[in-house]
């Protein structure tokens, strides 16, 4: 379990990193927290010739409130930073809820927000959160800057909209509003494990009923999946009874999701857990009410 030989450069700026990637085409990779990349390299599943370390670009670690009341989270924000930040807790409680399900303390101390999104593990928590929150992904590349909606960012298992030579620099999202509520839940065999099934949800509430909701399920497909039919059932004005809405949503879920079989869990099991999770997360959101 030793990586194949590789070179290493510490990037001095984002543009330096972009240049190094461009100069080394296929053979170069960004390294951020290294928590996923080093494992892949040790397994020799990934053998980049050059590692471009963006770890010292401190400004990529900032969490700031922008003029237009959005929260901008730098790509190098550590999972532990998300957990500790009062801004995150106040303005995007979903991330705060989710982050404690990501791995263990030691990994959260090094793993980064940008790394997690770029790595795009289908069982990861943060990709589902940014989809539920309809965040935007900010990218710098050889052709300049661009912004991709999170809902278009994840394209497959470990595959994203990031092009060759591009660096994810930040995520932006709306701060939570007074009538909004978010919910999070997952089933993992052990504390800190990747989820068997997870759900990140964000919605609006009025008079004890959801009026809008986004449900991003993860570990049920090659990317996080927005369960649109279930979401529609949950906010269906024609169904006033929340229990009935939930029942319909649970039924609709099998149209939204088509989870895979794998050695750890059958598709039927994942589907059942997704239904259970839907009930619990929505129940929790309704119980807590808006603003959290």
């Amino acid at each position, binding site marked *: 379990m*030793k990586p194949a*030989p590789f070179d290493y450069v510490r990037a001095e700026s984002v543009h330096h990193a972009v240049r190094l990637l461009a100069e080394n085409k296929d053979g170069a990779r960004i390294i951020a927290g290294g928590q996923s990349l080093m494992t892949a390299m040790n397994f020799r599943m990934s053998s980049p010739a050059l590692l471009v370390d963006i770890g010292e670009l401190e400004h990529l670690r900032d969490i700031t409130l922008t003029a237009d009341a959005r929260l901008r989270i730098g790509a190098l924000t550590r999972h532990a930073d998300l957990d500790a930040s009062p801004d995150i807790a106040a303005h995007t409680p979903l991330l705060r809820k989710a982050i404690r399900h990501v791995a263990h303390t030691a990994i959260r101390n090094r793993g980064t927000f940008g790394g997690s999104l770029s790595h795009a593990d289908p069982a990861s928590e943060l990709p589902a959160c940014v989809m539920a929150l309809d965040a935007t992904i900010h990218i710098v590349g050889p052709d300049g800057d661009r912004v991709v909606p999170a809902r278009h960012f994840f394209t497959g298992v470990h595959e994203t909209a990031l092009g060759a030579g591009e660096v994810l620099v930040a995520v932006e999202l709306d701060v939570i509003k007074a009538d909004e509520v978010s919910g999070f839940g997952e*089933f993992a065999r052990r504390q800190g*494990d990747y989820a068997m099934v997870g759900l990140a949800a964000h919605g609006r509430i009025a008079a004890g009923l959801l009026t809008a909701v986004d449900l991003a399920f993860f570990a049920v497909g090659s990317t996080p999946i927005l369960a649109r039919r279930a979401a529609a059932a949950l906010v269906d004005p024609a169904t006033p009874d929340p229990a009935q809405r939930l029942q319909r949503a649970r039924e609709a879920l099998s149209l939204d999701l088509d989870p895979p079989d794998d050695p750890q869990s059958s598709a039927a099991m994942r589907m059942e857990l997704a239904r259970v999770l839907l009930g619990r997360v929505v129940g929790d959101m309704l119980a807590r009410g808006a603003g959290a």
Partner: protein
Amino acid sequence: MMSDRAPVPPLALDRPNSYIGRSVPRPNARRLVQGRGHYTDDVAAPAGVLHAAFLRSPYAHARITHIDVAAAKAAPGVALVVTGAEIDQVCEPWVGVLSHFKGLRSATQHALAVDHVVWQGEPVVGVAALTRAMAEDALSLIEIAYAELPPVTDPDAALLPESPLIHPELGSNLAFALTVESGDAEAAFRDAHTVVSGDFRFGRHSPVTLEARSVLADFNPSERRLTVHQSTQTPYQMQDIYARHLGLPQANVHVIAKDVGGSFGMKLHVYGDEVATVAMSVILGRAVKFIADRLESFPSDIHARDHRVRARMAVAADGEITAMIVDDLTGVGAFSAYPRTSAVEGNQAIRLMGGPYKLRHYSGNLRVVFQNKAVMSQYRAVGHPIACGVTEALVDQAAAAIGLDPLEFRRRNLLTDDVYPYTSPTGYLFERLSHHQCVDKLERLMDYPALRADQAEARTKGVVRGIGFAVFIEITNPGPAFYGVGGARITAQDGCVLTLEPSGNIRCAVSVTEQGQGTEAIMAQIAASAVGVRIEDVRVITGDTAATPYGGATWASRGAGIGGETVLITGKALRANLLRLAGILLQMPPDNLDISDGLIVDNATGRERITLQELARIAYYRPDTLPQGVQAELTAAHHHVPRGQPFAFTNGIQASHVEVDVESGFVRLLNHWVVEDCGRVINPLLVDEQIRGGVVQGIGAALFEECLYSEQGQLLNGTLADYLVPMASEMPDIHVDHVSTPTLHSELGAKGVGEAGTAGAAAAVLNAINDALQPFGARLSQMPATPERILRALGKLAG
């Protein structure tokens, strides 16, 4: 906490300064916690050391048609590339059979596969290079052509006439079969009031030691001397293996096992990659090191368990268990392990069935089969969790069928205090067990009535809880006829050399070894107590064939009971030597003197007469002042093997309290209790931690651990991300208490404790889950009880 039914017999160690029964801290704890442990990988490597890596078979079953190592040989930093045939030229292959398992068969196993690979992960080519990374780079340049053969993975299918043969020379895939009959089980079933039965499955486990298998071999051709640092439980066994298989005089082989980071039985088997590493050192005349990484540990460390058991229990109208009939099929992978064989697990499982209970009619049938999977062999609590899991599940079913509380049902059937010494239907001899005291104590400890009340109350709120019990017996302190009797050069005795050093300190060299369980602390306690010195003044030396006497070391829960008794006997002998010398110096009869806290004292008054330090000074540096003809004997040496009984059986009971989420199938462990009887408790802290560690492994079996193989024999979850070891967050509090029934076959009275936790924990947890599921009409008889299996049992998943 100790509680005594009968008073513990008086002991020479019940002295004012005795450390027996005290939770003294481990002398090595500070060192280990500060990261100053000295594991094999920490050994300062000899100059020119090379690092080994192995190319392993990607197939479960295949012929090797061609191997091309030319590019690897030319790769940077590579000193040697070897195939199985080349290793065979310096190292004799082996066959994992012993004569006392009649009919046990296995095939010739080469250190590296020759022509034929029989499991995915079997080492095929070895590379020694300047760094491990270079060795791995070279591996990627080796080309091996395989012709795939149909794999045998399912144990039932392995015995079908049309099954492919793993070792054609054996004529079938059957490794071993055994039938154990006592009384008339069939008749008892005909007469039974109630019969309960089940088909049980126990998953395959990987031991997952913190420190992976590690070996550093250094062959010096000028003297034909071989030094091997190895993470092993059994330095002397390995010395013998290396000497015989590499054709070296035993005296030329030096095996050192300093700190060992866990072993659980996994580190006493012979592994091809380790032997090949040593052979490479012999070929090169250079040091070669091999540290297994996790990716190769999973498919190459021995696996454990893997049983399918069909069992029935017959019960009379009054609730008396009368008989059991058991059929156990176990898959041991591609070979029977060397040198201890893979028959022991099944042999113990089939003989331990029903062991705590009074039933006299028993019929057990064991079949052990080969499969194209990693070798399965002895691992903590060999066979016990299978026997306990099956028996205790049937006991719960029988109690429910008869309409009795499970604890009450056990009380009616457990062996009573008046039967000892007792020979079980399967031939095990129990000197004295304490089942009923353990049950009583457990019932109080867990406040059983309150838990049942809580269960009923919780159920009204839709919270589903369950309580499960498991009574267990444990084989410990194996006697003289264990492996040696079958022709293995594995000793059942231990040796100890105790010396009063010039400083006045005691040096204790003993053949038992430290795996992280605290053996050295126990030995220091016993030596200090037996001689009469402070524990700080005892230095214990283990794990070095050049520094300790020949002995069996660590396996089968024998360290404290056998090694400890050896130290006790030796300590008393040294004390007698020192008192004799002191008597001469002080011109007093030695009987009037004693040693206490490192001082020679007047027996009657306790008054200090002379320090041991002073005695040592005179003996070593001023022997001229001793009377003519007096020789100071400052060293005592003894060997000891338990005689009188084949094993010192221990017993106990465990209970588990769980909450089952019947929507998701997830289980939360609320609490776990153990009351056990390991005889005399030498160090309560260490005993409790042995129990807790063992329970955690049992919980792993019950809920988490399972090596998943594809039908093609590919290990599907061979990483720490995929193979679920039990972790702290999911563990319940584990409450431990003791009953103490010392064995009278030794002065110390200590029995083993290392495997008790593992023996019973899984059964208790599964019974608790089934207790919780009982109102839903669901029952599980497969471990691990994964959420998916629980939902399936509840009928919540289609297909």
